[in-house]
Structure formats: C-alpha cells, structure tokens
C-alpha cells in the first residue's frame, strides 16, 4: 500500500488558549495513499489538516512532507493543495480561470497552460463548462472545479476537508466512487477529513480515528471496523453489542474469558491492552449474529425473544432479549426471509461465530 512515507508528523500539538485542539500526535502517511481522518465534531480533524496545509502553526512538534521539514513554511510554498469545505471557488472568475489560477504563477507558456487546464477539467469531467461563471454551477460541479483547481497544481498531497458534506446523499455516494477512482488514476496522496464513518470505510486505504485531539486507532477500514481497539472506536464506527466477561486466563498475546451467553472464548489482545480487575468488555457487530429459521441449525446458537424491531427498507434491525443479558442484542437482517414480519415477543434462535468477538479497551 504505502510505498514510502510521504507525510511524517511528529509529536504535533495545537493549543487554543489552555485547551489542545490536537495534542502530541504522531502519524505516518504513505505516498499514493488514500488516508482518512475520521472523528466526531470538534475532535481536531480540521486543525490537523490545516497544520499540514500550513494555515495553522503548530504549538509544538514537526511535519515533514516527502522528506522536507515544512514546519513554519507558509501554505503557498508547500507541495500540498486543498479542497475547501465550501469549495472557495473564486466568484469573479469562470471555471477555466479558476482552474488556471495557480498555474499563472508558474509562468508556463500559453499552450502548455491551456493543455493542463483542459486535462484537469477532463479528469473531473467538466470539459464542456470551461466558460461558465462560478455562480452558474451546481454544488457538485463546484466541487469538481475545486478538485480540478487543486489537482492541476500536481501537488504531492491533496487535502480535502469534508468535501462531500454539502452534497445530497445520492450525489455524495456518486462522488465517493469518483473521488476514489480519481485518486487511483492520479496516484497522489489524498488526505480526507470526514465525520461520516461510511464515507471513510468506503474510500480509504487507511483510516485514523480521532477523539479529543488524539489518535485512537490507525488501520485499514476492515481492521478498524472488525477489530476496533476500544469501546469508543467501536461505537463510532457503527452498531456494536457490548458484553462483559470474566477473565479466566491472561497470557502474552491472548485472553481467555467466560461470557454469560457465548460460553468460554479466547481472544486476541490489542496492543497495549491490560486486564483490569479480572473483567473485560467484549464486542460483537450486529451483522455477525444471524437469525435461524425453521429447520436451520448452526454449530453455535443461542435463544432469545424479539423485543424491538425497526424497518429500514433493505434491512430490519431487531433487538433480541436473551436470558442472562441486561441489554438486548442488536442484530441486522436483510429482508429476504421475513425478518420484517417477526412479531414482538416471538421466540427466535441466533447463530453466532465466537471468532467475531473482539476485546475492547474501555
């Protein structure tokens, strides 16, 4: 994935008054990587991105881009370009002039300049709109202009601050696919800020999950989703059933634990995990539990009753009360077999896979 380190952030902090927006954070991002910064509102994603761009001066720490220390270098002399959240299209210029804005300073000859503008517009499929004034464009088109305007500079790193959040759902999903294939076509490092976990999961090579100015976990989408390191990360990335368990064995890399409903299980320890007072929290994603219909059997099953049901069109979310559990289990069923018609109070059997259980730090 990452051929070599493109961005290397070392012990960076940003204080606004006494409060850190980002606090001693270190991170390596590879060349050609699609990297997402994911976290709730106010966790410092934008601050971190703007420190990479040069708009925010770090209080502490250093940033290297492609081997060069850029700490203290102003934005106009960094090999990065940014797509702003509101796109910041220059209102007095048309599409071509917007895209050519940065090229003007490079003093290319006219034909070369025209060629690069044309190429960039083609990349974002806007070739026919070159002479439109900025206020004659839709939100999606403005987004493409902002992209072309940054890409035409051939930056080493493209920074995107919630570029899709102003678009409606349908267009957003279409742009996610386009943005990802564009990144693969141009092959430069993209750093995307988002608070939408599905966007991060769908687009990224790797995701950094941030809380309160600190990194909680940096990993591939699959790993982040399936093996979250703690309760907070697990919760932020979608539904999760939390169970408490009693530790029966604690070796180097593994923990053996006894659960009320899944019996005895052995779990891998995430890095830095320590058992506190013989108790641990386990998690299981709702879709890893499956309803068993008449005549179906599974190697591992448990019984419960339907206590709640929510219909979502393609899926139904069910709450299943199980004896010995204080909170019901959540499960997600596709609406193939009639999960959407199960009455509240119906007795059901669930199949589970003990390997889907993860050990979560608090």
């Amino acid at each position, binding site marked *: 994935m990452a051929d070599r380190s493109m961005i290397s952030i070392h012990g960076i902090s940003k204080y606004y008054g006494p409060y850190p927006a980002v606090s001693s954070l270190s991170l390596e991002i590879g060349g050609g990587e699609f990297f997402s910064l994911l976290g709730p509102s106010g966790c410092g994603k934008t601050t971190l991105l703007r420190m990479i761009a040069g708009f925010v001066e770090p209080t502490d720490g250093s940033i290297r881009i492609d081997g060069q220390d850029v700490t203290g270098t102003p934005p106009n002399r960094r090999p990065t370009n*940014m797509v702003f959240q509101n*796109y910041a299209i*220059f209102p007095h210029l048309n599409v071509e002039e917007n895209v050519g804005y940065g090229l003007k300073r490079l003093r290319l000859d006219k034909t070369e300049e025209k060629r690069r503008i044309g190429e960039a517009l083609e990349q974002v499929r806007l070739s026919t709109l070159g002479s439109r004034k900025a*206020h004659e464009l839709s939100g999606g088109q403005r987004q493409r202009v902002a992209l072309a305007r940054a890409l035409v500079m051939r930056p080493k790193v493209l920074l995107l601050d919630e570029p899709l959040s102003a678009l409606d759902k349908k267009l957003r999903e279409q742009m996610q696919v386009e943005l990802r294939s564009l990144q693969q076509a141009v092959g430069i490092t993209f750093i995307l800020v988002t608070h939408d976990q599905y966007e991060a999961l769908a687009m990224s090579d790797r995701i950094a999950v941030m809380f309160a100015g600190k990194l909680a976990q940096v990993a591939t989408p699959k790993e982040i989703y399936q093996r979250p390191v703690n309760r907070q990360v697990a919760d932020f990335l979608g539904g999760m059933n939390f169970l408490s368990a009693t530790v029966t064995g604690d070796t180097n890399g593994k923990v053996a634990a006894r659960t009320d409903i899944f019996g005895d299980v052995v779990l891998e320890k995430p890095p830095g995990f320590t058992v506190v007072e013989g108790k641990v929290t386990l998690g299981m994603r709702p879709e890893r539990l499956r309803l068993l219909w008449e005549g179906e059997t599974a190697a591992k099953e448990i019984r419960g009753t339907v206590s709640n049901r929510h219909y979502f069109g393609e899926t139904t979310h069910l709450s299943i009360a199980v004896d010995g559990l204080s909170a019901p289990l959540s499960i997600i069923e596709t609406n193939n077999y009639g999960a959407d018609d199960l009455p509240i109070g119906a007795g059901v059997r669930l199949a589970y896979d003990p390997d889907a259980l993860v050990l979560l730090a608090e």
Partner: protein
Amino acid sequence: MSGRLRLLPVFVAAYLLFLYAPILLIPIFSFNNAASTTFPLAGFTWKWYVTLAGNTVMLDAARNSLIVGVSVSILATLFGICAARAITRYDFRGKRLTSGLIMAPLFLPEIIVAISLLMIVLAMGAELSLLTVILGQTVFCIPYSMAVLVSGFEGFDRSLEEASQDLGETAFGTFRRVTLPVVAPAILSSLLVAFTISLDEFILAFFLTGTQQTLPVYIWGQLRFAAKLPSVLALGSLMLLASVFLLTLAEIFRRRAENRKILQEVPHG
C-alpha cells in the same frame, strides 16, 4: 375582488404622477423659450444651457461640488471599508451597538447634525471652508457607504484568500487577484452613492461653507432672481441627469456584488 384589481393600477399611476410630474417639469421648462415657467410652452431652445456654460460663478460652484463630492466619496468609503471589515470579519463586544451608532445619522434630522457640527467648528475656531463641508458631509455619508460595503463584504469569505494562498499566491498577489476584484463592485458602489449624496446635499453645505459655495447652495442663491430661474432649471436638469446616471451605475455594481455573494452559499445537488 375585481373592483380592487382595477383600482390598483389607477392608484399606482396617480402615485407615480404625484411623485415624478413635478420633477419632470424641470427639464421641460429648461428647454422653454420664455423666462416664465407657465404653460403654454413658448417653443424649444438651448439658450438657457448656453448661458449656463458662460456663467463663471456657476462653474466655480460646479468645481467646488466636484471637489467636495470626490473628497467625500473617497473619505466616506475609506472609513466605511474599515467599519464594514471590522463588522463582517471580527466578533467583538458591543458590535451591534457600534454599528447601530454608526448608522444613526441616517435617522437623525439633518439640520440638527448640521447645527451641531457648525457649533463644534466655530468652537474650535476653525474657518468655514470647503474643508468643513467635506468633513461634515463625510460624517453624513459614512452610514450610506457602510451599508453598501457591509452587504458587499458579507459575501467575502476568508477561505477565498486561503484558497489563493494555497494555490501558491503571495499575500500581496492574493490581495490583488482575489480580495480587490471580489469587493471592487461594493467599493465602486459606495463611492458612487456617497458622491451622489454629496452632490445633492444642501443643509450641511449651506451651514458649513464659507465664501465658496457648492451647486445646491448656488441654486438656492439664484432663486431670489426670477430672471435666473430658467438657467437654474437647466442646471437642475443636468444635476438630475447626473444623479440618475450615478445611482443606476451604483445599483449595477451593487447587483454584481450581490451575485458574488450568492455564490458563497453552496447549493445542494
């Protein structure tokens, strides 16, 4: 219902007639070949405009008006830019109160403002001159300039300057290639509005001037002589034309500024 619908155009027509007919009489009589302003008209003539061209006192007044107008529009716009930038860019305590106080002269009786300024000028022992007129009218025009500029600057998003810098432009280049062009329509509009107000302004100019008079003050002086009335009408027609022209221009720039502002709100889809 239908009765009301038919009444409305009549009402509008009457209203417009009441508003504009007296003003329209001025250019009509300025081309009338007679010294009196009565109907029936006595034939077409340019002669009142020709006498105007040879009237050195009037030309002096016109020059004074031009000096005052240009100075006032520049000063009011400069102060307006500072105030508008502070109001649109920064949050500070008492912001509402401050902008309210700056706008207040709009609603104060002009004659009160004029008398108070006169008292201050006299108390300071300063000499009445075009300079005192300029200062007085500047105070009076700042709220108008500021209103135009605030509406223009509100559309200016800081991220435009950041985007420019991000694309490799220096701070000065950013000012020249982004900041200035984006706010230019609002600035032009403010200059034109302030100039037009100054051109027509009588009370302050009357109270605060010394021996040099501006056009409105000159006109007022001429009204004592019945024979001079037709040239005054010719002069009035020209000033009317200039005002309408300048305000139209100001409106065109204001709309352009408005267009740029709309862009800041990203539409969905």
